């Protein structure tokens, strides 16, 4: 790194040496103010601190534009202006870098090189400084992200890692879901996978993804160019803009984005990215702001209902992917839509909203899309789980910070539940439960006619939670011992669909819990103990238990003992069902027998060699929704064609050049 700032310095997290959590907000009506602002924010110092032969600079830009001059991206001339400033500050070489995004799947000319050419990049600046353009997806390196990282198992960009100085140069723009978009959003372009919406925003939480990037390969400097701002409530999809005359610069990308949010008159933490990143990389309380933080005038603020609709739409693989090309304002010559359906739908929507100056139609369509996304999500949770996107998450906590005694205490605590639950009434076949301090303490026992050795060979007890019903994603990190051996400790985070599934209709969120675990394998008995220590979305206050696979004659006994307390959606909080004991008992019995019945079926299916995971995994190719619709329409047309042909009137006989009409003889 040639003496440059280490990872945590750039975000102001724990580190050695003085933190640099200053940000400069510059009024750049005067161009020379830009250089001064960058200098004040420490750019020159960063470059000067590096060894002379290690001053290669990678400048990350987000080429989000869909037409010449689109304010959603920086103009090439503006980027080249910054390149000149970098050379003036002592850079040895500069590359401008970006990577393909999900739009490359549905529009033409969306690869980095085509976009750079269409945007007017010249590979040499007005100051006669040469620079190169690179696609960060071209060369990748594996093994950059550690176990427990949300990006574990995915590649990182080699060129981004190789940069001695990594700079994010982002356009400041409005965003329908986050309020605004700056450096953190642009940092997604440092990752190589092309379908960024799917891989970095739907399969993973974008805030966790950015946090993982900041931990493993952070930028050293961030510049937010707000000289003109893409405005409108749909941000990067609208070509409208406003002059703002602002440049924000900082060694902390998080602080730069916070300053941007303040400058736009917003609460910066309404942005999911700012909120999640600040949780993982908290800033010290004392931050230094240089410049005017008063809010710009004329920046639109989305109503909460619009933000909610945008977030629902973007989170939905089905609706989001379907609608994105339809809403995107674009130059059809430079960036033609690839699919005929998209082109037709886009034309229809443009016709509808084209003269809608007030944006009422567009707003209505967006709200409808958000509602449709909610409906589709509920349908998927209830009836079509295979179409959900399987989730990848980080562990969410540092297992090294958990003392070894906590594991031993957990085993003792859970073993002590056995006599309590054994004396509870049997509420349904194999199910006993009672309430203690508001938590359900339960046991569920079932004997399977599957030989024990065959069962445990197929159902690895250390992964038992991953095989449970409605598991939609998670991660296991070994902590101590061999997970396949007689005794091991591990940490796990897992996500389930809301239980019971119908809670999704009331706004129920997936159950998201991080746990410490102990694996024990004895002759004739395999066990997994787990204890929840964190729920990232507050979906559970308790989810602890022990599962045991035990040899019984020719079969296997599966028993689960535990205690749980899940957070109910707001609708259900209105009603205290404990006031109606019979209802509470019936609902609880139904929820537990359904969940464990399905879980045991999963175990059986594993022994049969089946895959029990729900959702679309990262290695499963899936047709885009628009392509699926096109295929369905084609099948319908093929079936209907003979009927349509029969209904069509026969072609009228045409008169020949001499005026005779030729008629076929009657049968």
């Amino acid at each position, binding site marked *: 790194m040639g003496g440059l700032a280490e990872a945590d310095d750039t975000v102001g997290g724990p580190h050695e040496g003085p933190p640099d959590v200053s940000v400069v907000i510059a009024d750049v009506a005067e161009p020379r103010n830009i250089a001064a602002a960058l200098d004040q924010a420490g750019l020159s110092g960063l470059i000067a601190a590096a060894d002379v032969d290690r001053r290669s600079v990678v400048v990350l830009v987000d080429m989000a534009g869909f037409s010449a001059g689109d304010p959603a991206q920086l103009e090439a001339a503006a980027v080249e202006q910054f390149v000149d400033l970098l050379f003036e500050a002592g850079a040895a070489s500069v590359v401008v870098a970006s990577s393909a995004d999900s739009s490359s799947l549905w529009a033409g000319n969306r690869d980095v090189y085509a976009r750079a050419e269409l945007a007017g990049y010249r590979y040499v600046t007005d100051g006669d400084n040469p620079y190169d353009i690179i696609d960060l997806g071209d060369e990748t390196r594996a093994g950059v992200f550690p176990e427990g990282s949300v990006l574990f198992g995915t590649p990182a960009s080699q060129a981004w890692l190789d940069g001695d100085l990594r700079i994010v140069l982002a356009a400041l723009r409005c965003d329908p879901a986050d309020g605004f978009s700056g450096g953190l959003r642009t940092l997604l372009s440092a990752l190589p996978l092309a379908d960024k919406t799917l891989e970095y925003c739907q399969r993973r939480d974008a805030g966790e993804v950015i946090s993982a990037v900041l931990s493993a390969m952070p930028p050293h400097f961030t510049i937010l160019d707000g000289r003109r701002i893409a405005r409108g409530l749909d941000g990067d999809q609208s070509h409208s803009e406003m002059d703002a005359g602002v440049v924000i610069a900082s060694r902390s990308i998080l602080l730069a984005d916070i300053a941007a949010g303040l400058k736009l008159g917003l609460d910066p933490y309404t942005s999911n990215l700012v909120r999640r990143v600040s949780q993982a990389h908290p800033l010290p309380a004392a931050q230094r702001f240089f410049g005017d933080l008063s809010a710009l005038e004329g920046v639109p603020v989305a109503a909460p209902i619009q933000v909610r609709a945008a977030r629902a739409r973007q989170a939905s693989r089905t609706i989001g992917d379907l609608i994105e090309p339809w809403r995107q304002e674009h130059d059809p010559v430079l960036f033609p839509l690839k699919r005929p359906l998209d082109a037709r739908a886009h034309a229809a929507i443009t016709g509808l909203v084209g003269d809608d100056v007030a944006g009422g139609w567009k707003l209505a369509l967006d709200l409808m899309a958000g509602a449709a996304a909610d409906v589709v999500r509920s349908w998927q949770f209830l009836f079509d789980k295979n179409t959900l996107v399987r989730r990848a998450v980080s562990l969410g906590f540092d297992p090294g910070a958990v003392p070894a005694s906590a594991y031993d205490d957990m085993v003792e605590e859970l073993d002590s539940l056995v006599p309590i639950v054994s004396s509870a009434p049997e509420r349904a076949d194999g199910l006993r439960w009672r309430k203690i301090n508001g938590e359900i303490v339960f046991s569920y026992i079932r004997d399977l006619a599957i030989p024990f050795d065959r069962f445990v060979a197929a159902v690895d007890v250390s992964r038992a939670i991953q095989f449970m*019903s409605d598991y939609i994603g998670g991660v296991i990190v070994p902590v101590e011992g061999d997970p396949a051996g007689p005794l091991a400790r591990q940490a796990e985070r897992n996500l389930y669909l809301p239980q019971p599934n119908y809670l999704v209709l009331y706004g129920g969120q997936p159950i998201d819990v991080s746990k410490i675990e102990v694996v024990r394998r004895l002759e004739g008995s395999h066990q997994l103990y787990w204890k929840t220590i964190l729920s990232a979305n507050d979906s559970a206050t308790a989810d602890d238990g022990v599962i045991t696979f035990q040899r019984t004659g020719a079969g296997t006994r599966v028993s689960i003992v535990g205690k749980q307390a899940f957070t109910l959606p707001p609708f259900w909080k209105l009603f205290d069902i404990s006031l109606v004991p019979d209802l509470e008992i019936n609902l609880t019995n139904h929820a537990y027998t359904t969940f464990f019945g399905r879980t045991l079926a999963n175990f059986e299916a594993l022994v049969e060699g089946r*895959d*029990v995971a729900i959702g679309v995994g990262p290695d499963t190719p899936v047709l885009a929704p628009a392509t699926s619709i096109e295929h*369905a329409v084609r099948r319908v047309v093929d079936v209907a064609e003979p009927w349509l042909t029969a209904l069509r009137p026969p072609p009228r006989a045409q008169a020949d050049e001499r005026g005779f009409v030729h008629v076929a003889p009657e049968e």
Partner: protein
Amino acid sequence: MRIAVTGATGLIGAHVVRAAVAAGDDTTAVVRSYSRRDSFDSFDIAKTPIAVADVLGPMALLTNAFSGAEVVIHTAATFAFGGDAEALHRVAVQGTENVLRAAAAAGVRRVVVTSSAVVFGYSSAGEVIDDDRGLADTAGQPAYVIAKIEQDRLALDLADRLGLELVLPCPTMSIGQTVSELGPSNALIVTYLTDPTRSTYPGGCNLVAAADVGEAHVMLAKAGAAGAHYLLGSENLLWSQIHALIGVLGGVGGPHWEIGANVAKLAARSQTIIGLLSGRASLSSVEQANMMGRYYWYDHGRAAALGYRPRSVVTALIEAISWLAASPHIPREARTNMHLAEAVHRFRYDELTQ
């Protein structure tokens, strides 16, 4: 005995090959060039000699495939409801004519042509039909039934003219492991296991294990009377009884209610539309819905006189569900709702142990 079997990758054909090999007969599997043969492994017949020919293809290939055989067992057919009637008819009638002519040309003495129990029709009040009933009238019958009746008429006439001994086994709904696509008989099990409403319908059916049908074919190849039909079934049950058995063995329970023909037709139409839009094959059709309320009950006395002893329907269902539960024919979500009966597990692990 030297036996050539057409349709060897089909539900019945594969079981015929397995039974013939097990009986020590010199067996040749006749398959189309594009048929999947890797799945023969699961039938322990991977080493069976294969001849490539299509019953609707060049006659020379078919004749060559039959050369040296004493008996041809012709099982190749399309078993489907609601499909292309013309294609069904072509395979059944033209295909059978080609097989008989090729067999005669190859010097084959005897031909066993797989017919179907439905050629004897059905009853509306639950009477049991036996082998002496005679071929049913084709009026109002589904395309598959018409094709099989016309196949039999042609076969009886043409075999007589060609001097071939002809035997016509008539299986009822045959269930069990297959190396080819699911087919309507196994689909009836899958349909119930995947039906969230757990509905049944009026009428009844005779189910039989495909393995028993396979063994019976080999038996009839050796001992069947020329020109005779042989019903090959097991037990006659109401649909509600069949669904209750599937519910117990698959661990899904029910049936909870009985639906009428109109509701069934509506459901079948909906499934067809959903299948059309999703690109997935529909498990039921309006043609099948039209067959509701009828009793396809048969007596296999003639085959029994030759030693045919089919296993019970419960045993046949245990074996079929054991295989289906682990197969991709049962979607993951449906499998998650199943809790297999102990008898299914026992069969599976006893078989694996053997």
